[in-house]
């Protein structure tokens, strides 16, 4: 076979020499391919990790809400047994739930920065007895409502700073002329038996209270303390008779605590509609799990004592307040985590 000789290129000719070499292309190609696969897998890994993270976080959030609910139930149980509500952390995985706080237990925390939460104004047994004379004139009185501090501890302190009263309808001239708490005249101050013309109704919004009776000094309620013998004296006899309201749709007592928070308690003729509530705030924190991402959820629950009371005068003693079945009026999730 003849081999064609290579042509000689003249020295003064500019040409491009194209050299084709197959050496190493397989290796290069493989490296490029593997790099691309690794990049793709890295992206998938990241996505999968995020998916697992989100799944785990959602799990912990679900667990947190049920732990918060457990805290609410624990508070109600402590109230009903007479122990009072204790604001602290409770661990759920320990059967006694009374171990000192630890970092690894699932827990719920009862906490609140508002004194109104633990102030119970029980309007269930309230009624209007026959009018009585005060400052020379027959007056209506709302009596037999009870006040209570459901806390077992001294913090936050529960003390009444001001009291305002609202009612509807409120024609001009009707006022509150005296307030007794715990069987003692608290307003007006001094020796006067009543204050004339008195203070008018305090319609919403609250705060601030503009027609309030300022109690000097504040009236404190110690842990688990109860105040009975409470009376609101009105200027006229147009409010109630025979036990209930006659010309009014409702009467509201508004209690401003020393910390500025306000508890409103409503009295109406229907016993089932009368307020007798306190509030519990509970935060659930799951701390155990394969992915211990911290999740917290906080519930606010409103509890009404003596939920099924129908007979007038019932729920007028401490044992009745605790032992009669109560009801959970509402659950509300709070966005604020603490206090």
């Amino acid at each position, binding site marked *: 076979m003849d081999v064609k000789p290579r042509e000689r290129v003249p020295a003064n000719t500019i040409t491009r020499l194209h050299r084709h070499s197959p*050496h190493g292309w397989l290796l290069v190609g493989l*490296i490029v391919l593997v790099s691309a696969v690794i990049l793709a897998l890295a992206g998938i890994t990241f996505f999968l990790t995020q998916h*697992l993270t989100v799944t785990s976080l959602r*799990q912990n959030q679900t*667990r947190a809400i049920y732990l918060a609910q457990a805290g609410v139930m624990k508070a109600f149980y402590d109230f009903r047994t007479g122990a009072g509500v204790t604001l602290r952390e409770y661990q759920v995985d320990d059967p006694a739930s009374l171990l000192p706080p630890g970092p690894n237990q699932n827990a719920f925390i009862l906490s609140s920065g508002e004194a109104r939460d633990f102030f119970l104004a029980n309007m269930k047994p309230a009624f209007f007895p026959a009018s009585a004379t005060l400052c020379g004139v027959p007056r209506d009185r709302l009596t037999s409502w009870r006040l209570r501090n459901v806390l077992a501890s001294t913090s936050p302190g529960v003390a009444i700073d001001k009291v305002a009263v609202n009612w509807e309808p409120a024609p001009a001239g009707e006022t509150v002329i005296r307030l007794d708490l715990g069987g003692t005249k608290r307003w007006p101050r001094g020796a006067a038996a009543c204050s004339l013309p008195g203070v008018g109704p305090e319609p919403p919004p609250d705060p601030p209270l503009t027609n309030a009776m300022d109690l000097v000094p504040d009236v404190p309620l110690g842990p688990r303390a109860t105040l009975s013998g409470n009376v609101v004296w009105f200027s006229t006899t147009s409010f109630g008779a025979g036990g209930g309201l006659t010309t009014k749709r409702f009467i509201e007592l508004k209690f401003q605590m020393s910390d500025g928070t306000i508890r409103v308690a409503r009295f109406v003729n229907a016993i089932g509609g009368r307020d007798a509530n306190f509030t519990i705030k509970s935060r659930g924190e799951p701390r155990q799990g394969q992915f211990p991402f911290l999740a917290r959820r906080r519930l606010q629950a409103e509890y009404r004592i003596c*939920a099924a009371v129908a007979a007038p005068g019932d729920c007028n003693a401490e044992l009745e307040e605790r032992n009669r*079945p109560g009801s959970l009026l509402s659950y509300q999730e709070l966005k604020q985590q603490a206090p």
Partner: protein
Amino acid sequence: MRRGLTLVELIITISLAAILGVPVGILLSEHLTGAIRARDAAVAMNLARYEMERLDSLNDFCHPDLALTPPGGILLSAAPFSIYPSYAVRRVVTCQAQVSATACTSPCVASPGATDNAIKRIEVVARKSGSSDLLASLVSYRTKYVSFGP
């Protein structure tokens, strides 16, 4: 004349493929495991939530479904749990605290003024059937003589 691949090239290429292929294979395997685990966790939590919400809605401390269970709990087998036989969901109800020795088990008294207060601990646990790995767990409390609603 076209040159072919050298033996050295081929050996190096195959070796590199083998070295890089092992971790890539492991990564793929872990991906699959992780995806399956995430699915299992999500399904297990949904099943546990279903049961917990159902118990919440009972509104009755003395309901038979809230009775105290044996230590290992009760395996839930009715729908929808029967649709997911690969998951074992158990309900565990224990007495958390009681004012008397029988308050947790005594019937709810219809008359007012009942003093047999008690609190139960309700736990719903989901595992893979035949496995002891915990996939989901929910815990809450229920106290006696507190109902939902005004």
